[in-house]
């Protein structure tokens, strides 16, 4: 997991942009309209997101479309998955203890 991914996504406007792009690629103007931010702001955030490898640009006709790259999200998923597995292992053991106790009570 690249810690830069999390730091980059920690900014609320950037997280909003990522959530919007999750639904599909969008142009800068489209992002500006939907999030009620000004264009320099959106362009700045898109540049930071691109630098972190989170989004990529696709030129289409006269416009530049931004879309999410899957890799950082896969890495993010794996990052949390280990912690989840650790808890899951504990809880599976807790299930066994509960099962034994339930039997005793019957």
């Amino acid at each position, binding site marked *: *997991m690249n*810690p830069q991914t*999390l*730091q980059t*996504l*920690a*900014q609320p406007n950037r*997280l909003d942009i990522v959530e919007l792009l999750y639904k599909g690629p969008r142009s800068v103007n489209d992002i500006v309209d939907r999030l009620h931010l000004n264009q320099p702001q959106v362009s700045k955030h898109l540049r930071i997101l691109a630098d972190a490898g989170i989004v990529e640009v696709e030129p289409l006709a006269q416009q530049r479309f931004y879309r999410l790259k899957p890799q950082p999200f896969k890495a993010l998923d*794996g*990052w*949390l998955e*280990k*912690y*989840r*597995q*650790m*808890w*899951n*292992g*504990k*809880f*599976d*053991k*807790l*299930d*066994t*203890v*509960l*099962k034994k*106790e*339930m039997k005793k009570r019957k």
Partner: protein
Amino acid sequence: MSKHETKVTAEPGKQEIWIEREFDAPRELVFKVTTDPEYIVQWWGPKEYTTTIDKADIKSGGQWRFIHHANGQDFGFHGVYHEVLSPERVIDTFEWEGLPEKGHVILETSRYEELPEGRTKLKIQQVFQSVQDRDGMIASGQKKGMEESYERMDEILAKIK
């Protein structure tokens, strides 16, 4: 008993982690096995660890210290119980003694919710002192996982030899 999924949520830039899991047992029993030292030793560590209890004064204001044992190494954890309210809520502090620096304490709140048909939902909120502390805790799990897979690889390599 069906197997339930553990849900873990960590939003970017926040200092908290949420852990949720359902159990096919009534709330007072889930509360009992998670707050009674006799049962805690049976489940508290990850699967390859054994756990012993140094201190477990499980009441509001009481202290706790548990130790994990794995591969000849000991890992201590300790804290205090801020509130033990049977069968609905436990609030405690949690510090891992293996960190190079002391004072990185987590505030944990465990909520036990009654579900229909004698089931229970356990919701644990862990609040860290900083975003870095939280991300570091999650990353340490990953490191451990990697070490484990390396060890397993060593074993396989040894067999092939």
